[in-house]
């Protein structure tokens, strides 16, 4: 790689922003491969070959005292001193980066010095990492992936059916863990915009989320209906079965029929329905083999 292909005027705004927020420590390799000055160049050649690296810092304790590059090894082979010690042939006072430096400095160093990698020191001048152009490009690719995912998510709304200004219905799929909770996040955002106080907002969000999760993890799918009235809000979770065998037992704290898969997502403690009971003013469940309807009411005064 001759240079990092990022030049002023050609780099997108998003990539520029990513570069500006990153520091050298964010991209450096923290797992260090080092050698001491009493090791032979031949041994270092073997380490480089095995590790796939082109430069090896020579250290005393945590302090870097030199560096052996691939060029040094080639020279040693050409001039037949490969069995001599690293301390005799290392480049002393190597150019280093500091872990707290902006990434822009690191990029400019690669441009300026044309080295394959730089040692990174902390504020105590201890060697804490190495950074190559590949490390920088890997991290940038990772960050760009995050940005693209965030943009994709921004435009991917939960399946919402508008039923008037005060009612929303969300379709929930069975075991759709990726999207479980999206409806409740939307509800919370919507209610926050209406100026509701933080305590009521939390109660509504918790009730909605627990009911939504309940439909996703325990049923064959269903809907979450959210109604706002003048003096209360109403959350109705309807599912398509298989139904709750014993509602009284299901409402006991700690009772659960959750599988390991559900627990792997952080649910299945047997607290969901009791959490809904705790945060709502009225909560009823009706269930048969055809499905369950959970009906929650939270009294509310807008602007309170």
């Amino acid at each position, binding site marked *: 790689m001759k240079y990092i292909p990022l030049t002023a005027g050609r780099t997108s705004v998003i990539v520029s922003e990513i570069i500006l927020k990153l520091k050298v420590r964010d991209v450096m390799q923290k797992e260090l491969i080092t050698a001491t000055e009493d090791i032979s160049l031949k041994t270092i050649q073997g380490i480089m070959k095995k590790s796939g690296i082109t430069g090896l810092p020579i250290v005393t304790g945590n302090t870097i005292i030199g560096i052996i590059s691939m060029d040094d090894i080639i020279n040693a082979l050409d001039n037949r001193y490969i069995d001599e010690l690293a301390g005799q042939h290392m480049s002393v006072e190597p150019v280093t980066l500091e872990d707290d430096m902006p990434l822009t400095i690191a990029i400019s160093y690669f441009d300026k010095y044309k080295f394959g990698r730089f040692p990174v020191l902390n504020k105590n001048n201890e060697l804490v990492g190495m950074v190559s152009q590949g490390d920088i490009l890997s991290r940038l690719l*990772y960050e760009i992936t995050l940005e693209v*995912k*965030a943009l994709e998510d921004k435009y991917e709304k939960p399946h919402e059916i508008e039923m008037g200004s005060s009612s929303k219905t969300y379709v929930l799929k069975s075991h759709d863990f*990726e999207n479980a*909770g999206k409806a409740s*996040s939307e509800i919370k955002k919507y209610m926050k915009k209406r100026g509701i106080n*933080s305590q009521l907002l939390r109660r509504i969000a918790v009730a909605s989320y627990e009911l939504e999760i309940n439909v996703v993890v325990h049923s064959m799918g269903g809907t979450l209906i959210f109604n706002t009235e003048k003096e209360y809000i109403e959350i109705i979770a309807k599912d398509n079965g298989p139904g709750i065998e014993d509602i009284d037992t299901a409402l006991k704290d700690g009772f659960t029929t959750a599988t390991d898969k559900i627990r792997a997502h*952080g*649910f299945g*403690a047997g607290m969901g329905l009791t959490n809904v009971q705790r945060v709502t003013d009225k909560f009823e469940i009706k269930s048969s083999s055809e499905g369950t309807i959970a009906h929650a009411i939270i009294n509310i005064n807008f602007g309170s």
Partner: protein
Amino acid sequence: MELSKIAESMNCSILNKSQNYYEIDISGAVVTNMMSNVLASDHDNFLLVTKLVSAQVIRTADIVSAGAVLITDSTDIPPEIVALAREFDITLLNTVLSATESRKIIDKLV
């Protein structure tokens, strides 16, 4: 205590920094892998500490307006989880410490 100071004291990696990162004041920690425990909590401005890596951790933090999420045990965090934290503007931290070690330190700090 300020979240930024806690993150610094614990040498956390910051995977996502919320817009109000430097203004977040943490009053305690909820340490659990079960999200219903978090939803049952009455605490405000708490740090959600868990080993669990799931979209539901971030969604739960959003639902209860947690101050931040701290993933323990050096657990690998996939890009989609970081992206979700960004979407909800939630600070996401990672530590090499275990949940128990993290709790001890946070309890001392706050």
